[in-house]
């Protein structure tokens, strides 16, 4: 599991460079997200373009990543692939997160 951080004018983009966020990587993901979000301010964009699969442990880790934010920080998601989108839809976590089609789109549209 590798998280690649790119600061942009509108958000800190965190790209997940892995095909899965699952039971074997969820804890590591959560801890790395804790370090990354502790080191910056404002808006974070989790780019899930490369993530083909997420299980309930991975979903829990994404939720945990949001819960461990400080006031003034926000975590949004981008580029959910079909299975990932399905898991978010079934659990209705798609109603909790702001979800963008692509991480690029976010940079283009500013804070919108």
């Amino acid at each position, binding site marked *: 599991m590798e998280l690649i951080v790119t600061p942009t004018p509108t958000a800190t983009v965190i790209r997940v460079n892995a095909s899965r966020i*699952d039971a*074997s990587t969820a804890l590591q993901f959560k801890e790395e997200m804790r370090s990354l979000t502790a080191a910056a301010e404002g808006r974070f964009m989790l780019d899930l373009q490369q993530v083909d*699969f997420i*299980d309930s442990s991975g979903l829990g880790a994404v939720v945990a990543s949001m819960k461990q934010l400080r006031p003034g920080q926000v975590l949004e998601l981008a580029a959910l692939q*079909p299975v990932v989108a399905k898991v978010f839809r079934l659990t209705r976590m798609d109603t909790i997160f702001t979800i963008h089609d692509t991480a690029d789109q976010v940079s283009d549209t500013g804070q919108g």
Partner: protein
Amino acid sequence: MTRRIRLVTPGRADPAPIAELCLPAMDRTTPVILSRVLGALRRSGYGQMCDTVQIVLAEALNNVAEHAYPAVALGAVAVRVDTQAAHLRIRITDWGLPVPPATLAGCSAPDPLELAEGGYGWFLIRSLVADLAYGRQVCRNDLILRLDM
């Protein structure tokens, strides 16, 4: 001494499997099991079932790894996939602790506003299967998931 040996013939009720394998039940082997089962589904012309199978089978395998074998280093899990009428049938067998009755009794949908970090696994399984059956024999659990095709 005469010893009678009864020949065991394959059950007539079980059609030839699409996939059948047995591996250690560990978080790290779950992707391997999924990959093999999904590959077999695609080769057999059931590729359209892959997304749903991946979600439900991953959760079932995680449950075995985490709850059936909590106190021992290693246990086995067997997966068998076949078709039954209009259903794809997945049987997950382990030789660990039984599934608690309260877990099987069902659960309400998680409230997204609670921001729970767990408890979605069985909900995802129940959301996607047509039905599920659980059987406990001596030292053995069988979970049978049937999916609409």
